[in-house]
Structures are given as C-alpha cells and as structure tokens.
C-alpha cells in the first residue's frame, strides 16, 4: 500500500519536529526563539493534519540527517533543508485536496518557504530539497 499525501505530510512534520529538537539544541540567542517558534508551528500543523487523516501516523524514533549536525551552522542548514523539503510535501497535498484543506496546505507551504529564508536559505522558483 502506498503512502497518501496526507500521511507523507504528517511524516514530514514528524521529521521537522525531530529536526527542530536537534536544531534548537545547537543554536543560541535569537535563533533559539526562532527554533522554538518553528517547533510549535510544525507541531500545530502536524496535529491539524492528523485530525483530518483517516489513519494514525506513527513518528519514527530517530532520523538520520544527510550531514552531521553538531554546531549552529550545520543546524541552520538542516532547518533550511527540512523547511524546503516540507514545501514539496505540502504542494503534493495541495494537489490531492480541495477547498479549505488545499488552502491550508498552501498556507503551510508558504510558511515553510518563508522560514527557510529566515534560516539563511536562498529563494527558489520552486522551493524543495
């Protein structure tokens, strides 16, 4: 059975929540607040999606990052990566939904792309990682 776009988005949000735990532990100052806010936002979207999904989606216990995250610079790179990756998943969700659910998916995609810039990312015509 293949994974549906909403299940993929919930799994993506779980990965973001896990990532922000690591990111938050590596950054200091204003970036700590930014990580805290991002973590809360991703949790809120995750809960909202889960309430609309037909099945409960389990989070993974741990995630392997594509590069070592052991300082503020690598933590910020990870934040850019997970945010841009989430944009693609929300775009997939937008394509498979309609009405308010689609509008929400686009809003979430816009927020993720905006956060990627705040973490030092560059703009892209079609944000994804």
């Amino acid at each position, binding site marked *: 059975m293949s994974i549906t776009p909403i299940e993929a988005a919930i*799994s993506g949000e779980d*990965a973001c929540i896990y*990532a922000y735990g690591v990111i938050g532990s590596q950054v200091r100052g204003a970036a700590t607040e930014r990580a805290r806010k991002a973590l809360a936002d991703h949790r809120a979207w995750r809960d909202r999606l889960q309430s609309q999904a037909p099945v409960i989606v*389990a989070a*993974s*216990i*741990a*995630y*392997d*990052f*594509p590069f070592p995250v052991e300082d503020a610079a690598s933590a910020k790179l990870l934040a850019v*990566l*997970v945010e841009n*990756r989430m*944009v*693609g998943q*929300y*775009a*997939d969700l*937008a*394509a*498979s939904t*309609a*009405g308010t659910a*689609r*509008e929400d*998916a*686009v*809003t979430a*995609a*816009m*927020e*993720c*792309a*905006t956060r*990627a*810039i*705040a973490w030092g*990312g*560059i*703009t*892209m*015509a*079609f*944000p*994804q*990682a």
Partner: protein
Amino acid sequence: MSRRAVLAVGAGIAGAGVLAACGDSTAASGPANDPVATEVAGAEQALIAQYQAFITTFPQLKVELTPILDQHADHLKALGVTTTSTAAPVAASDPRTAVAVLADAEREAAKARRSSCVAATNPELARLLALIAASEASHAPALTRMLAR
C-alpha cells in the same frame, strides 16, 4: 520495519523536475488549459515588468533583484501560457522604496496564488501554484533582508 527514518534529499531536482513534469503534460487537460493558468500568467508578467522597471531606474539593484526576476520568469514558463499584462509598473522615488514596494507585491502575489490554487481544477496546476505561492512568500523576507543591509 525499521522505525529509524532517513531524511532523504533529492539533490539537484529543484526546478528542473517540476518544469519537465509540467512540460510533458500540457496536452488536452494540462495545466495550461485551465483559465486559472492564464490569469496567473498575466500576474506573473506584471511582476516581471515591475522588476524590470525598477532595475532600469535603479541599476544598483540589478545584482540582487535579477535572481528573483528570473524566478518569476521560471514561474511564467512553467505555466505554459503566453499572455499580456495590462498592469503598468509603478514608480518609486528611491531604491529602498522600490524594494519595499516589491516585498509588498510579493506578499500579495503569494496570497493571490493561494486563491488561484484553490480555484484550479487540474491537480498538477494546483501543485505548481502551491510551489509558486511558497516561492513568492519567500521573496518577501529575502527583499526585506536587502533593506536591512
């Protein structure tokens, strides 16, 4: 099943994959046949004209504005529709005002793309418009960052 997941990274697929995917399917029921695509194409052309006007008036902005201008050209290309914009570019008294005008225009554009996305009947067009909305939402803070320097 392993409960340890890998955060996969599809390297180098940004842009090219989306464009190819759309280019392959602009047949009978493709995104370009949706009237929403024509409307968005007109709005993208208006944005392109606005960036070009400011770059002409304030050449010192060229280096920083050109990447964003190019991204709007990519948006237009992906829509697969040629149309003409009726909106005339606005003027600005100085470069900082010009950048602020563009940041506002991008925020409005992102919201408009979201509405267009909801109105789109073709799922592929909806996916494309979601990505364009995200791109334009991200342009606003990138422009604001220019103002901070």
